[in-house]
């Protein structure tokens, strides 16, 4: 069995290292020592070899392990979807769902990377490390909810903010070549007026366009646990920051492996690529008063499509309010944050009443001056 304990332990004090977004290095939370991931190159190579040899802890089902059915990473799943591991540090049971790739032990807090989830097809090619640290993300979240004027007070409590989790979400990164063609009828009009009539001259053109464009590393969320609209809304990710995958980037964060295959996700990628082609075609038809599209076609060339598996950084926060679940997603690289915040009826009524009163008084003063 691989000695996973040695991979990310601080050489100075023996504490468990975690990836530091602000330093972009591994950092010991105990002594503050900072190490470049390349420092642990040999350990990484050993870990890769262990994965290839399948020399890693394999998870058991809850039945096999005789464990309770509730997962330790705040998820709610059927027993058959859960896997049980044992913490290498304290020996406690770690119950996760079958796609969890990295977590923390609920008992001793040490980071846990589940090597089994990176075997063969599940090993990512790329990773974009976190650049926003937890303090920054807490500030970003507070700013976000405060900027929504009708947010209920429950969303601003510290107890809620402390539940923000950094998660590496699995994505497929697509390279696509898209071609498109269109035939249209365009009119250019200009008018002039004489004493009796307004004259309009219409010039009619036959328009034809054929073109193509390339798309690189278009991310499509490949985890069924994360909603697509939330992941789309925190784009774009800057792929210049992507690096070859290393296990060390995951320490201190949660991670998921994909459960939606590349072919299934490719439909969304193709749809977005074809929409971009359509927009480029429409942009190229310029200088007309009106355009009528007669025939249009966009398609992605299947032979030119490829997909790489990558983990991208996202902070997630799930808040329960009035029986509903509200998910916030923060781009762990750029800090872009989205989330549907509920509207507090009491605040809505109060603010509307205040605005109405102010406008009414101003209106009366203006009316008294006018009348």
């Amino acid at each position, binding site marked *: 069995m691989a000695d996973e304990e040695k991979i990310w332990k601080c050489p100075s004090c023996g504490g468990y290292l975690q990836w530091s977004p602000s330093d972009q290095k591994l950092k010991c939370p105990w002594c503050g020592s900072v190490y470049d991931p390349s420092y642990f190159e040999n350990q990484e190579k050993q870990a890769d070899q262990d994965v290839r040899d399948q020399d890693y802890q394999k998870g058991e089902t809850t039945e096999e392990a005789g464990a309770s059915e509730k997962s330790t990473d705040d998820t709610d799943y059927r027993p058959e979807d859960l896997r049980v591991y044992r913490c290498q540090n304290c020996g406690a049971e770690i119950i996760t769902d079958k796609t969890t790739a990295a977590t923390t032990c609920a008992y001793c807090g040490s980071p846990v990377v589940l090597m089994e989830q990176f075997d063969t097809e599940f090993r990512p090619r790329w990773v974009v490390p976190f650049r926003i640290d937890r303090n920054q993300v807490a500030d970003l979240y507070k700013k976000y909810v405060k900027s*929504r*004027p*009708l947010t209920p007070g429950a969303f601003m409590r510290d107890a809620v903010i402390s539940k923000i989790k950094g998660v590496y979400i699995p994505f497929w990164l697509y390279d*696509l070549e898209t071609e498109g063609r269109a035939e249209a009828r*365009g009119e250019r009009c200009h008018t002039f007026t004489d*004493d*009796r*009539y*307004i*004259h*309009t*001259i*219409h*010039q*009619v*053109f*036959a*328009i*034809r*366009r*054929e*073109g*193509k*464009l*390339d*798309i*690189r590393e*278009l991310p499509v969320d490949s985890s069924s646990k994360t909603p*697509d*609209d*939330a992941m789309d*809304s925190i*784009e*774009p990710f800057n792929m210049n920051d992507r690096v070859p995958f290393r296990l060390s980037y995951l320490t201190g964060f949660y991670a998921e492996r994909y459960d939606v295959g590349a072919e299934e996700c490719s439909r969304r*990628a193709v749809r*977005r690529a074809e*929409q*971009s082609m359509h*927009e*480029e075609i429409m942009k*190229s038809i310029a200088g007309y008063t009106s355009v009528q599209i007669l025939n249009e076609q966009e398609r992605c060339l299947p032979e030119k499509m490829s997909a790489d598996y990558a983990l991208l950084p996202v902070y997630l926060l799930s808040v329960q309010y009035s029986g509903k679940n509200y998910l916030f997603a923060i781009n762990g690289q750029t800090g872009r944050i*989205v989330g*549907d*915040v*509920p*509207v507090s009826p009491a605040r*809505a009524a109060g*603010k*509307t009443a205040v*605005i*109405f009163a102010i*406008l*009414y008084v*101003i*209106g*009366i003063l*203006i*009316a*008294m001056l006018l*009348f």
Partner: protein
Amino acid sequence: MKKTLIFSRKSILRIQKRQCLVVFLAFLLFSAAGIHAVSAASRYVQDADGQFGSDEEEHLEQECEAFREAHGFDIYILTVNSEEAGGSTEQDSRDYVEAFTDEHAPSGAVALLINMDIRYYYIDVTGDTPLAIYTDSRQQDLGDEVRSYLSSSDTDGAAEAFLSEAGAVASYAENHGDSESGEDGQHTVGIFVIPAVIAAIVSLIILGVMAGMHHQKKEARDASAYVTKNSVSFPVRQDVFISQYETRVPVAQDRNSSGGPHISTHTSSGGGTHSGSGGHF
């Protein structure tokens, strides 16, 4: 020696006849003056052009008085000619009637002026209440009614029709609140109700905008952020001219709005606010 005048019976009768004649002539004189005095005392009907008989004038005067009592503002009928009054142009006639109403009805009136010399009529409206009642479209209707009689030189008929129609319009306006000249009813609506409605609408719009800020998640539709720079190319780009054609629409005429409560006003030389309309017949 003292002379004694002896008047014979014949001479006494002759003297008496002369006295009667003098009395009779005096009676005639004062009667005419009296008639004239009645005319001079006419307040609402000013027949400088002698278009109305005495009976007609008296009748019109009574009707005008009744109008005044019913509606609270004056109504005048003026006939003019170019020589004595009213002038020889349309503008002169308009100025005449406006000066008349400014002088005699500072609180408001509606007046009909008829100038038979230039075959021109003008309806003048002044004062808050009459201006609120006699809108442009209603003046137009009054003018049409009057013109139909004047075309056949029926001045009395025109005056009667003017009085009748003006009274009907005033009654209608009073029943439907149009006669509130802005002092009471319009004042209340303007100051309290309109700001409340506007404030409510704006508040709801602001609420909608604020609530809209709470929902931002949406699926991405395109991939524009991931299009490789300079990779967009159109090897085929054709814009071929096919044909040309022309369409045209007539230039819209400038028309006054004849419907609805529109009233166009101006200031007379006497400083009063007037509205009016007129025409030839």
